[in-house]
């Protein structure tokens, strides 16, 4: 053994071990996003690429041109503001429903006996693994005017004319809640199953009623799981494209759709970039909350 040479070797190997994933993420995640930021300040032009450069060297001077057209349009055209508000609202409502539906499911799974628990968990994981696109597509056949839901309700005599759900905001809500429910249940379950049940026993011994014990012990302790799950639903929902496109109407305003249209239909890349930047800006608080949760989960937490 040669301790001194070994010790010299350790830090460099550490850096070497950390570097490759870091490099990949820097190159294919951070750098691309900085480019979006840059292009959001460019101006549309015909050619390849279809936007002006940010800095140009001309007549012995570096000319920096920041075009704010995209941002000005975002703040003056009320359609964009309405779209942002509506996206946040739809993602928020979806998250609330996921909490309402998902919490009891996660709770009862976590409190089942191990064999049953495994089976129930499998039932949540299976849709999680199955194609989101195909699962959303399944709702088209259910929600259409001549779809299964309307046929069933009319067959039962509950309604006389079909409910218009397909191609409305309601259909988008149903689709998003359905698609993202497993993303809420799984982290919450992971939290609930680790809870120390002796705390509940202590509460019962001290005379607490079941709902009191639930409300004052289980709910506060499961808060990190709820936050993690809620963020996993809320943040992607704000920028969701596939679900509003498949189930929503032409007037279901969502940011992801606007961005997609600016990019593909209008080929206005600077505008699409500006829409993207403001979307990320809006998501900064929930993103920071999610990251904080993640970083805290990385901490050794008193085990060492």
């Amino acid at each position: 053994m040669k301790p001194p040479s070994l010790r010299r070797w350790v830090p460099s190997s550490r850096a070497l071990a950390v570097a490759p994933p870091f490099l990949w993420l820097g190159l294919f995640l951070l750098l691309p996003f900085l480019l979006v930021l840059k292009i959001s300040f460019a101006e549309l032009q015909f050619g390849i690429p279809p936007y002006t450069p940010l800095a140009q060297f001309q007549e012995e001077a570096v000319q920096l041109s920041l075009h704010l057209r995209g941002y000005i349009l975002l703040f003056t055209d009320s359609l964009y503001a309405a779209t942002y508000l509506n996206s946040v609202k739809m993602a928020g409502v979806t998250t609330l429903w996921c909490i309402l539906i998902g919490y009891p499911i996660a709770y009862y799974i976590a409190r089942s006996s191990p064999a049953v628990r495994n089976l129930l968990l499998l039932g949540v994981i299976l849709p999680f693994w199955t194609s989101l696109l195909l699962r959303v597509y399944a709702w088209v056949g259910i929600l259409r005017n001549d779809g299964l839901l309307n046929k069933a309700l009319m067959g039962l005599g509950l309604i006389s004319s079909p409910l218009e759900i397909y191609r409305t905001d309601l259909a988008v809500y149903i689709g998003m809640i359905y698609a993202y429910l497993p993303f809420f249940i799984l982290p919450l379950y992971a939290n609930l199953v680790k809870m120390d049940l002796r705390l509940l026993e202590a509460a019962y011994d001290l005379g607490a009623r079941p709902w009191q014990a639930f409300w004052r012990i289980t709910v506060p302790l499961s808060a990190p799981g709820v936050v993690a799950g809620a963020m996993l639903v809320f943040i992607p929902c704000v920028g969701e494209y596939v679900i509003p496109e498949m189930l929503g109407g032409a007037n279901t305003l969502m940011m992801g759709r606007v961005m997609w249209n600016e990019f593909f239909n209008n080929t206005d890349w600077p505008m699409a970039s500006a829409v993207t930047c403001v979307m990320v800006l809006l998501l900064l608080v929930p993103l920071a909350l999610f990251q904080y949760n993640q970083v805290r989960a990385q901490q050794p937490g008193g085990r060492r």
Partner: protein
Amino acid sequence: MKGPNKTLRALALGLGYAFLYLPILSLMVFSFNDSAVLTSWSGFSLRWYGELLRDDALLSAAWLSLRIALLTATAAAAIGTWAGYVLARMGRFRGFALYVGMLSAPLVIPEVVLGISLLLMFVELRGAVGWPAENGMFTIWVGHVTLCMAFVAVIIQSRVRDLDRSLEEAALDLGATPLKVFFSVTLPLIAPAVVSAWLLAFTLSLDDVVIASFLSGPGSTTLPMEVFSRVRLGLKPEVNALATLFILAVGTCVIVANRLQWRKEARK
């Protein structure tokens, strides 16, 4: 201790699972419907499965998606395992928060953001160095690996964290280099997690429509892109048939993997 309320439990779980499974079930049932009008039943038939086998556009898209998913899963499993291990074992280093941030961002960030940012980067790169010559399989692969490695890293780091550290420490004490310890002690112990992470990356890549739409080029239409372009306007029976096959395949894999793992845990 008092058990949970039986009626409430049955109600919550029953409704919850009905909500999760009825749509999938209806999708599968109607794939056997003879009529092209998907919402009314006209008799059992396998004709849409036959049409599926003759649908060249779908088949070639499926072949492309399968190749991308295989390459993505393998690369994402390797680099994601690496990243997850670093997260769990390397302690805090300079830039740790940025590292965690970048690694968990793809879990939540809307896919449209990932798609547009990578596309713009490839466009700039092409303008600067003329490479990659055109968008296609390679660019989609890069996008998918970036997305999937985050999911792999989450699975791996939680598995590594649960490992008994003393095994690795014993190997180090016996004179093994850290690299050797990783490959002959840690990796065999986390192998099942790596396999399930590989599978998750595979299905994520096979399912993605948004990132692929941004990063695809001429002649590289993936299966989800093809499916999406057909169903955005309404119901397509051949898609029901495809979905049924897909769900059965995924379901079988997940159930088998779960049973194997469960048996192993029960034996302990």
